[in-house]
Structures are given as structure tokens and as C-alpha cells.
């Protein structure tokens, strides 16, 4: 028995949280893997209870929703899956340098919309006038610039006036949405719809329309990994993120790094907009990005700012998103069902990071000798 008077004086709480550094990387991955598995099982059980379908049937439907009849020669849906991953991943990659710098860019949506706007504008205005190669180059340059400018504006205000970038970038989303709405009104006439433009589309490779998009994002993924890990600028971003004062003392121009990094972040969002317009829709509306700019924030975090981990995370989340909405459609449920299911798994993934980095200690009966 412990000394009662001593415990009264210095009462240990029932539960306390301790930071842990001792977890090996494979152990952490085991936990993440198990979380996804348990998440999938929970989704399966809940789906089964709601839809009255069999347990394994639910997974069959999910699988068919994502991969279709892949092994019977129908590849369209599989490519569509890769395309959805590519878009979400590209946005997550775009946000990563900013987040690493602890600049909370919540404006991926708007920056991508502006990139998309630049693309559709060039496709409509120069589509007939320029040769194909030049047109694509013009689309690429203007989209990148448009996204970058939309990212630089809040960065400049942050660097010079120390404004709150979270609110600033969020507000910029609304401005971008309204600009698109106005452009659609001008171009679409009374009908509020811009019909797909045939000029300036990315070429289909084989029978596959999304191949170019997927390759572009694959290249960006590798470049971003190298940039963050091995380049001097990548190092500067980490230092500014850790401590702006340290950065100043070792002679890093913090303002320059903030603006430059946001230009890159915005430019990559602009690229995403271009992929969506020139590589997919060939048209634009305010719903172009469909809220993925916000999902991407989570993807960047869950991927621990590592581009290759982000591939895994986006693949899981997109799988769930498509698969569960197929389950919902097959059972004539509405979309809230799929949103709830995806939400549950994302929440579990966020939660499991907590247990990887911290351990929970219960009050032990015996007093520990060394803390």
C-alpha cells in the first residue's frame, strides 16, 4: 500500500497523456494500417445495418464502384479512380510547402478555381487562333500564374502587415467563386452553363482521357519530395516553420520565403485547376473543385507532409468516397450516408496519429520511482 498522505499531497490524475518518441516506424504503420482496416470494418457493419445488404456484399459494391469490371477489360473506372486520386493529391502537394512553413493556406479551392478560369479563358479566346502546342503552353503558363497570384496576395499581406492568413485565404475563395460565377454568366448566356470547349484539351493516350493528368501529378509528387527534402529552399521552409526568429538569426529572409512558398503553393493549385479544366471537364462552373481544397488540407497533414505517404492517404480516402457513395446509390440512400462514413474513417485516422505520438498512462497503484 502506498502512503496515503503522500498521494493526497501530490494527487496523480486518473489518466494522463505522455509524449512518446519510442515508437518505431513499422509499429506506427501497423497502427495506421489497423486503423484503416477497423475503419473499413466499421463502415461495412454500419452499411450492412442501414442497407440491409449482406456484409461482404457491401464490400463487393464498394469494389465495383471504384474498380468497375477491371478484370473484364473495362478500365474506365479504374482510370477515373486514379484521376480522382491525382486531383486530391495535387491539391495536398500544393498545400504542403505552405503548411510546413506553418502558413495555413485554406485557399486551395480559390487558387485552383483561378487556375481553371485561366485555362478556360485561353481555350475559348485563343482556341481557334493558336496552334495546339502553343495553346497548351499558354494555358499552362497562365493557369500557373493565376494560381500563384491568388496565393501571393495573402502572402504579401501576411509578410508585410502580419494579417491572419487563414481568414484571408478563405475569403479569397469566395472572391474566386464569384468571379467564376460572373464569367459563366458572360460566356454561358442565359443558360448558366458553358458547353465543353473542344480546343486546348489534353490529348487522350490510348483510349484514356486522364492519362496525362495522372502522369503530371506523378511527376509533381516526385519533384515535391525532392524539393522539400533535398533543396535549400525546402530547408528554409522547415526553418521558417519551426521558428521565424531562428530563421532571421541565421540570415534567412523570412518575408521572401513566405511569399515564394505561397507562390509555389498557389501555382500548384493553379495546375490542379488546369488539370480539371483542360484535362477533364473542358468547361467550368463554381463547383469545379467541389470542396476538395479542404479535404486536401487533411490529406497533407495525414501524409505528414511526405508526398509518398500522401499518395497512400488520398488513395484510401478516394476509395472510400467513391465506394461508399456507390453503396449509398445501390441502396437508394442519400449522400449524407457516404459523407458520414468517410467522416468516420478520416476521424479515426486523425485519432490514430494521436496514439502514435502520445501514450495514455493510467494512474498506477505503485508509485513510480523515476518519472
Amino acid at each position, binding site marked *: 500500500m502506498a502512503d496515503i498522505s503522500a498521494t493526497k499531497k501530490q494527487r496523480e490524475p486518473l489518466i494522463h497523456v505522455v509524449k512518446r518518441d519510442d515508437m518505431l516506424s513499422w509499429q506506427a504503420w501497423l497502427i495506421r494500417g*489497423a486503423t484503416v482496416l*477497423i475503419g473499413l*470494418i466499421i463502415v*461495412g*457493419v454500419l452499411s*450492412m445495418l442501414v442497407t*440491409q*445488404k*449482406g*456484409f*461482404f*456484399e457491401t464490400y463487393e459494391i464498394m469494389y*465495383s*464502384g471504384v474498380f*468497375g*469490371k477491371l478484370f473484364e477489360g*473495362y478500365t*474506365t*473506372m479504374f482510370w*477515373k479512380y486514379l484521376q480522382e486520386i491525382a486531383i486530391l493529391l495535387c491539391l495536398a502537394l500544393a498545400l504542403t510547402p505552405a503548411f510546413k512553413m506553418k502558413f495555413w493556406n485554406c485557399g486551395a479551392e480559390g487558387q485552383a478555381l483561378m487556375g481553371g478560369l485561366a485555362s478556360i479563358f485561353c481555350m475559348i479566346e485563343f482556341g481557334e487562333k493558336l496552334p495546339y502546342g502553343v495553346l497548351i503552353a499558354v494555358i499552362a503558363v497562365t493557369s500557373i500564374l493565376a494560381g500563384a497570384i491568388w496565393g501571393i496576395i495573402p502572402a504579401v499581406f501576411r509578410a508585410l502587415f502580419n494579417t491572419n492568413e487563414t481568414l484571408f485565404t478563405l475569403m479569397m475563395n469566395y472572391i474566386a467563386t464569384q468571379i467564376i460565377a460572373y464569367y459563366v*454568366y458572360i460566356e454561358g*448566356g*442565359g*443558360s*448558366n*452553363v458553358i*458547353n*465543353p470547349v473542344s480546343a486546348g484539351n489534353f490529348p487522350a493516350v490510348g483510349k484514356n482521357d486522364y492519362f496525362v493528368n495522372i502522369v503530371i501529378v506523378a511527376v509533381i509528387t516526385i519533384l515535391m519530395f525532392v524539393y522539400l527534402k533535398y533543396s535549400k529552399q525546402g530547408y528554409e521552409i522547415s526553418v521558417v516553420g519551426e521558428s521565424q526568429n531562428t530563421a532571421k538569426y541565421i540570415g534567412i529572409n523570412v518575408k521572401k520565403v513566405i511569399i515564394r512558398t505561397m507562390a509555389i503553393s498557389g501555382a500548384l493549385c493553379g495546375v490542379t485547376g488546369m488539370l480539371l479544366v483542360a484535362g*477533364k*471537364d*473542358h*468547361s467550368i*462552373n463554381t*463547383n*469545379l473543385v*467541389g470542396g476538395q481544397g479542404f479535404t486536401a488540407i487533411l490529406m497533407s497533414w495525414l501524409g505528414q507532409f511526405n508526398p509518398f505517404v500522401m499518395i497512400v492517404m488520398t488513395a484510401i480516402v478516394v476509395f472510400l468516397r467513391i465506394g461508399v*457513395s456507390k453503396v*449509398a*446509390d*445501390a441502396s*437508394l440512400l*442519400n*449522400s*449524407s450516408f457516404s459523407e458520414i462514413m468517410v467522416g468516420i474513417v478520416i476521424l479515426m485516422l486523425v485519432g490514430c496519429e494521436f496514439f502514435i505520438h502520445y501514450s495514455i498512462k493510467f494512474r498506477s497503484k505503485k508509485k513510480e520511482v523515476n518519472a
Partner: protein
Amino acid sequence: MKKFLAILLAVVFVVCTFAACGGNNSGEEEKKVDLKVGFIFLHDDQSTYDKNFMDAAKAACEAMNVEYAQKTQIPESRDCYDAAVELIEVDGCDIIFADSFGHESFLIEAAQKYPDVQFCHATGTQAHTAGLSNFHNAFASIYEGRYLAGVAAGLKLNEMIADGKITADKAKMGYVGAFTFAEVISGYTSFYLGAKSVCPSVTMDVKFTGSWYDEQLEKEAAQSLIAGGCVLISQHADSMGAPTACETVGVPNVSYNGSTISACPNTFIVSSRIDWTPYFKYMIQCVIDGKAIDTDWTGTIETGSVVLTDINTKAAAEGTAAKLEEVKGKLLDGSINVFDTANWTVKGEKLASYKADVDTDANFEADTEVIDNGVFYESKHRSAPYFDVRIDGITLLDEKY
């Protein structure tokens, strides 16, 4: 690690139990017709617009004993094409139907790729010029339904005048519209003309929200119309905003897309809506019989596509039901034409000729003469509405595109 294993085992056990009790409820399905319909919806059943289609899809497919699959939340983008491909390749659908205007171009693309599959699209405009034998548009002459609803509104105004609540010159209606384009203009004009046919002194104010679904904006628009002296409200937008605003202050309301009587027991008069069941049945029957589906199909009162809900006798004027039956009969036998130019003027003049943009092109060029023998024929040259004339008696308080 032991603890972890124990938890994992427990989870696996629970799952197996569930798996064992699920999965045994198939096998009693009756023999269905070997045909499957795929539906693509813009939103899901939370939108009254999509719900109207979803209810009809269910009713038609059950009545025809065919299977169907659906994809909800499909934006007006390339996703529509992908959804069509999925419904064909994975679900094995033989007919694809999409419900939103912006789906059209992407559906046409899919129609080109799958010539053996029939594609049907509501509210679209391009089928009659696309030159595809497997792509079809459909709409309904909902202006006739609105006209009938307008008659009910006019009778209510007459009752208010007779009761001394308002004078004849104060008979002003308010209308909450979504966007300032043909579908909405055609709708409010036919509603107004219906009211005017029984209450000649009526005028109308129109306010637009710039959105198909925005409860707050629709509510505010209705409130400001009421504040501006409107004594009866109708709307062409998909939320409950306007009806509930009316119920709160006791202003009579003529609704759209379905009855709002449960939320507005004291003010709801009647509602018009398009019933898509006849079209779905028609399109399925065509495919079963191997016949061609109409390139441009217009549902009417006769086909059962344009319908009115039950009249709320608590709010409607006396004798409304009988009058509506009478007018409906006249619409059916052709003795009343909704857009008869004898009944309306533009800047004081009767319209003798009008060219509308019927064939879709980039410049929205007006291309087709639509007035014949003094009647503006809506939905004749194309199922989707093209009446966009601004007539006297209706004041547009704003414009939203």
C-alpha cells in the same frame, strides 16, 4: 502487443457474427423484364427538384417491372460522362437518364461512345440539332400547369376584393424566381396570365434570387414582396423559403413542385408540378418494343405529365376546383391557348411576330418564328421553354442570371 491482438480478434469475431446474420435476404426476387435504367441526378432527395425525378423513377420502374440504378450528386461536369459510363459498364444499364440542364453536353459525349444505349435528358435543348439517334430531350408544358395555378390565384384575389380586404387596383401578386431566363420567365408569365384571365386588374412584381435553392434568399425575397404590397405569392425555386414566409404572415401562396400543405396549412392554395412518371414509362416501353424514342418529347396535361396537387379548401376561394376543371377542359380541347397574343401586350402593343432562340448556338441567336395565327406556341418547336418576352403588367424588381 497482446492487448492489440486481443482487440483485433474481438473485432474479427464481431464482424463474423454480423456477416453470418446478414446476406441471406436475396433470392425471392420475381422475374423482371430484362432491361435496366440508369438515372443520373444532380443532387439527392434533399432537393425537391431531384426528389420529384427520383419518386417518378421509382414509380415508373416498379410499374414497368424493370430494374434501375442511380447515381446521385453528379455535378454538371465530366463526372456526368463518367457516371454514364459506370452505369453502362458496371451496372449494365440500357437506358441512361440525366436530370439537370448542364449534364447535356457530357451526356451527348457518352451517347456518341455508346450508340447501342439510349440516352434521355430532361430540360435540355440540343437533341433536335445533335443528329444522334440515341440521344433524346424531354420536358413538359408546365406553363399550362402554371396557368391553372394562376387561375386559382386569380380566384383568390377576386374573393379578397369581394370581401373588401383589398380594392381591385390593389390586386398585386408577388413572384420569387430563381434566374431571369426562359424557363422561369415562361413560368411566371403563364401564372400571371392565368390570374389575369379571371381577375383583369391584377399586376405582378417579380424578384430573383440567382439560385435554384437558397432558403434564406427565397424567404427574404417573399418578405420584401409582401412588404411591397403583394397580397399573394408564388415561386419558382426549390426551397420552402417563400411558402413558410407566407405562412408566418398569413399571405396566400401558390406553390411549385409539390404540396406544401403540411408546413403551410392556412396559406397553401394549390401547386403545379411535372410528373415524370409518364415519360419514364414511355421511354422504357419504347426500348422494350424496339421503337425509337421521340427526339424531343413534350409532356402535357393529356399525358399526365402536368399535374396539380389537391386544392387546399381552407385557403382557396370557393368554387376553385370547379373552375380549374373547366379551364383544364378548355386547355385540352384547344379553346384556350396560354400565350394567346390577344391577352397580353408588350409596351402597349400586341406582338405579331417573335423569333426565339430554339436551336442552341454559341451566340444565342434568335432563329425560329414562334408566333402563328396570333398565338405564341411554347414547347412546340422544342420541349424546353423558350418564352422570354417581358409583358405588360409584370414588373421585374431585379434581374439575376
